[in-house]
């Protein structure tokens, strides 16, 4: 235990490529994850900023003449290493929450901070760079780039960040090995099954070692076997890398993978259930 209350654990951070300013933060996530396993109360350590913090977020859409309040004065905090499952009926605002948190859709009111930085006060270009380095996305329809191979898809965020292609591909191959697709690295998405494509998408979300992964119904297009596989993978990988996860799903079974569940109805968090003990 260090004087400031954090645990001194050696970090696996910085092994290949990482923007310098994220090194410390990453180490903190890792520290926190390990510390939590040792002591559940460690989440209260005051020196660690929340990975995601939404304050008073509101979002309204216009549907014809009708104003639809998708999110209403919404507050939400996600600490490093947490795995939150967001459930709720269609139109409850689950995906909107994810898009706003991910810097893809602007809120009408309130603030969104990821790793302590207000996402919506940044310029568009800076926000894109921030997403690249701090956020990982997993989409329902996989959203892989069809003309790239699996390894090129996974390395894309690193290539966009200016990393040499060879190093980026090496890191991508390592992740594909971890998701069990080492032998499919040179295949294009059209040559992969749905489950395999989603595993590639998970690898892509994790490749830049983001502090937050946002998964929008990642099992919505998969059979139950693939769903279990992908959810298990998402959880174990994020666990290993210390990334926080927000998973939006209709799948009630997916809730057991989270450390807590957030139930949204009409843009408001109606129920927050604790996850079964020992799951996380």
């Amino acid at each position: 235990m260090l004087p400031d209350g954090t645990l001194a654990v050696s970090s696996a951070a910085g092994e290949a490529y990482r923007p310098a300013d994220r090194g410390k933060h990453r180490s903190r996530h890792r520290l926190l994850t390990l510390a939590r396993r040792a002591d559940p109360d460690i989440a209260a350590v005051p020196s660690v900023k929340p990975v995601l913090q939404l304050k008073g977020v509101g979002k309204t859409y216009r549907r014809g003449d009708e104003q639809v309040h998708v999110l209403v004065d919404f507050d939400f905090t996600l600490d490093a290493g947490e795995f939150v499952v967001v459930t709720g009926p269609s139109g409850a605002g689950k995906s909107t929450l994810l898009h706003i948190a991910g810097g893809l859709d602007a809120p009408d009111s309130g603030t969104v901070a990821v790793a302590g930085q207000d996402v919506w006060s940044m310029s568009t270009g800076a926000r894109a760079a921030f997403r690249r380095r701090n956020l990982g996305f997993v989409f329902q329809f996989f959203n892989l780039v069809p003309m790239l191979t699996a390894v090129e898809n996974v390395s894309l965020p690193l290539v966009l960040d200016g990393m040499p292609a060879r190093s980026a591909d090496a890191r991508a191959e390592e992740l594909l090995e971890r998701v069990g697709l080492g032998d499919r690295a040179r295949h294009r998405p059209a040559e992969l099954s749905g489950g395999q494509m989603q595993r590639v998408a998970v690898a892509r979300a994790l490749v830049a070692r983001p502090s937050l992964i946002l998964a929008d119904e990642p099992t919505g297009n998969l059979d139950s076997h693939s769903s279990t596989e992908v959810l298990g993978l998402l959880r174990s990988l994020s666990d290993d890398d210390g990334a926080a996860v927000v998973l939006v799903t209709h799948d009630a079974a997916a809730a057991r993978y989270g450390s807590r569940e957030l139930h949204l109805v009409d843009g408001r968090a109606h129920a927050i259930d604790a996850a079964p003990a020992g799951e996380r």
Partner: protein
Amino acid sequence: MQRLRAGWMSFRRIHLAALVADWRRTLLSVIGVALGVTVVLGVLILKSELVRPFDSFGPSLTHAADMGVVEVTPNVSGRLPIETVNRLHAEVAGAEAVIPIVAALTPVDVPGGGTHGFFLLGGSCQIELLVGSFNCEQRAHDANPAHGPGVPLQIPTVIADRLGLHLGDELRIPGLPPGSAHLGWTFQEFDRVKGINDGYVLLAPSGDIAASLLGSPGYATAAFVLPRQGNNISAIAAGVDRVIAGVATAGPPRPHLPAVFEGATQNLNLAALAGIIVGVLIAVNTILLAVEDRRAVMGTIGAIGAKPVGLFGGMLCEGAVVGLLGGLLGVPSGFLLGTYLVNSFGRSMLAGSGGTVAAHFTPNLIVIGAAAGIVCGILAMIGPAARLVRDGPLASMASAGGVQRARKIPIWPLVVGAGMLAGAVVVLKIFERGSLPLNPGINGMTVGLCGVVLVTVWIAPRGAGLLIELLTIARPAVGRLLGADFRRYTLLFAFSAALLAESTSLTIGSHSMQLLGTRQIGAQKADRLPAALFDCRPIGARSAGRPAFRLHVRVGDRSR
């Protein structure tokens, strides 16, 4: 450097990979650009080749002169009084030389039985200051011209050999009496004149003789003022302007189109513009078709962290690559189209003027084709790229692309178009009987063309749909590709074709009106001018009592 490398890597992974992977679409886009560039190059070749013969006593004639040559062009075409030239000699300080030139295109009957266009050029041996030395003065003093009928003219040896002309052979110039001119000398220095009407040049021994041959004695076609080295060009220009005020204008050498052609240039520009618009439209249509379906993918790439400016620039570069390939592919076909246009339209447009045109392939065509293709590609990409940036990644990801958007063309273009066509046919039938003035006829034709546009807009997509269905049965991969967004494609294509038809019609119409106007003015002149001015006798007969050409005196008189 690192940024460049990173940019290149992103471009390779996101854009080039897409072009390679979706090679059928890429090929379609490249062919689309090539079609556009073909139209553009074809029209530009026609335009440049038509102007080329009339460039001969402008920039081509002065190619060897130092910078700052001032050309004096009379306000009445080909009528610069010799007195004005003499005043320029006397009053413009700082001029090294004032060189009057008599020049015109003229057909010449050649021994084989054919006719070839020559550029008849007359002036003193000071012409060497403009085209470069070709031993003019020495030949004039030392070599007697070959014997033959009429005025001895000189032509390049290469051209004489090419046409089988020998020294002393008569040169028959239509419009002049037989025995007016013959081949007196040939000269070896072809490179001095090869830029003038491709070297088909007849050099008269003096400006006076050339003026007589062209029926304008006492006048020069133009004069060139060469400034002495170190003299202030603007001061010389001011001096020239003072002397020629009201008679002529001065400026840098320029092509001299005949009066009818001056107006036709505007029409050619219009046709070239129409060609360019059609080219761009075809390219835009095809590239749009290719990129529309990739919006969702580009949105995803934006969502995972590509900067909007990077995506925008990448898409423009992708368009430029497609455009470059299409532009280069369009060069040979553009040249072939240009050759066809020159052979079929260019020659008939120049018939009787003596100008000869042939399509020339120059490396510039490759540059123009590539540049036109790149412009087409970039223009085609600007729309989708800007839309991607404007909408943001989320909206782009949610887009279905062009494939799934159904479009329906309403029936009204068919009804209105058919109505306009029927109305136009009725008006034109009445016009044919001569009971209507010209204006309703022209307006009727325009309304009819608009009707054709509207009917085409309705019919073309449906016709294309049927054809694509048939193609899909034979070649499913190609058919599906074309069928993705054929309605918009054929709609825009119909507009393009209609635009070309409309502008061509306008071009033909305005050209016809010009010819009509010229004929009317000619007819009115005959009524207005005194009969004494109408002397239709041959030139030789006009110089009553004097020999037609006092050649022995004039040749001896030539001096710098």
